[in-house]
């Protein structure tokens, strides 16, 4: 479904964010991409979303080379307060992208309402995003992506700016909605637990320049529970392994932890 081949990106100032990334994702899969801060996760996302052209290599979506932003792709950004338009109501935020699909006002409203219901916000349509809490705003952003009915949903540290409890709720929400039309989901995170908990597969990136260090299949029952799943030996084991891969990478390169890490991965 998604094929990333030899993706390399060097920024204008000579900073190499990605080094020969190869990744293949099957339709309907939920793949977590995890890595230390500054491993080029966001650059990878932007290249897949078509927002940025890689220096070399290519991204194939449904066997078509990606040059522009594809129409069957939706993104959930980390910074919900900036990615939702404050001048539009929640319903219009969710409905606006549907104009592209040639839907009329009524159809857009219905689709928006449906999507809002599926993320647990049936009554928020008339409000403005800034009247909602952070977790609710991110639900709206997810509803917007769902209403768009993409075949690929990219999530760039989507739960990085909400508190722990909300984060767990949103992870479960994601697991609930992932079945929508056989949607494929790519979730970027720096949270090891999260990557294992929601993923079918975890891809570990190395520190910059980002490179795929390992791919681990998540062998957990598909029915997941915030408490029970996290205490399964398989979960604990997997989590430790991902942690070792990331930490090992850090110590192997003997990099000291920077004080002011950038929020963008």
């Amino acid at each position: 479904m998604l094929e990333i081949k030899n993706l390399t990106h060097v920024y204008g100032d000579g900073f190499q964010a990605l080094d020969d990334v190869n990744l293949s994702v099957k339709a309907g899969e939920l793949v977590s991409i995890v890595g230390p801060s500054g491993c080029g996760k966001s650059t990878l996302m932007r290249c897949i979303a078509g927002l940025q052209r890689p220096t070399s290599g290519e991204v194939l979506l449904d066997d078509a080379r990606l040059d522009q932003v594809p129409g069957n792709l939706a993104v959930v950004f980390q910074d919900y307060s900036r990615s939702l338009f404050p001048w539009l109501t929640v319903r219009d935020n969710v409905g606006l992208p549907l104009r592209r699909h040639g839907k009329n006002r009524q159809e857009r409203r219905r689709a928006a309402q449906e999507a809002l219901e599926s993320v647990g916000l049936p009554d928020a349509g008339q409000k403005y995003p800034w009247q909602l809490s952070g977790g609710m705003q991110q639900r709206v952003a997810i509803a917007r992506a769902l209403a768009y009915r993409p075949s690929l949903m990219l999530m760039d540290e989507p739960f990085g700016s909400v508190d722990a409890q909300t984060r767990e709720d949103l992870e479960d929400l994601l697991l609930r909605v992932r079945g929508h039309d056989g949607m494929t989901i790519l979730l970027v995170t720096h949270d090891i637990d999260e990557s294992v908990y929601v993923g079918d597969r975890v891809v570990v990136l190395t520190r910059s320049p980002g490179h795929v260090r390992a791919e681990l299949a998540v062998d957990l029952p598909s029915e997941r529970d915030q408490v029970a799943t996290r205490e399964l030996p398989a979960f604990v084991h997997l989590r430790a392994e991902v942690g070792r891969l990331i930490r090992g990478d850090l110590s192997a390169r003997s990099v000291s932890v920077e004080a002011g890490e950038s929020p963008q991965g």
Partner: protein
Amino acid sequence: MTIRTSPAGRTVTGPAARSRTRHVGATWRFGGWALSRIWLIIGLGALWQILARAADNPYFPPPSKIFPIVHDLWFSGPAGHLFLTSKAGDDFTPSLTHIFAGWIIASAVGIVIGVALGRSRAASEFLNPLLEFGRAIPPPTLIPFFIIVFHITDSMFIAVIVFGVIWPVLLNTIDGARTVDSLQLDTAKVFGISGWQRLWRVILPAAAPKIFAGLRVSLSLALILMVISELVGATAGIGDHLVNAQRSFELPQMWAGIVLLGILGLLFNGVFVLVERRVLAWHRGALRNEG
């Protein structure tokens, strides 16, 4: 009483209760705001009255003399004409035509060109010296030129106002359109919001707070330029009234004209602020909830 609620409180409070609180809060705030303004105006008016009385100088008539004249000259007409006298019609019609035609034309042109330049870095950098030069020319200096080109016609007055007030709108719109949040633009791109939709639903709303700031400055500038241009060359209008009062040495009449202009300025600004609050309600709300 304050409207600000903590983020936690916001999620817990029911919507109905919250809107009620907000409504009561707003009423209170408006009452307090009005009282604080009116208190100052009354105080200064009283001070003015006392000082003018004490000075007893024909150049400085007291407000008790000026306001009845304002009333007699312009606002003592029949109820059917909204209490406007025929002199009010003669004075206001040309002046208000000039100010609003000029302001509206300048705003439309300024916003259109401003968005175009703001979205094109190359064009705005290329034209920036020209814009800075145009803005630096004091608009009244062009009155003689416009008189030669248009003679004493409505076009002349409107041209002076357009040229003078376009700059705040233009420069603010350029700034607003250029500084649209990159994530908002990325979002638009990802979700296929392009062309007119992008302009109308994303760029213009994002730039609106700055555009409105420019429009407001322009409106008060338009009033100033209206009077200046009419002082120079009008045969009708509020500026013409001032010149006539000056020539016939009727100082109370002249002061009445000055007070009238102050009232008009207050009125324009007040209406503008009301419209702005409505259109930019989202902006105020978003700012309030940011902290």
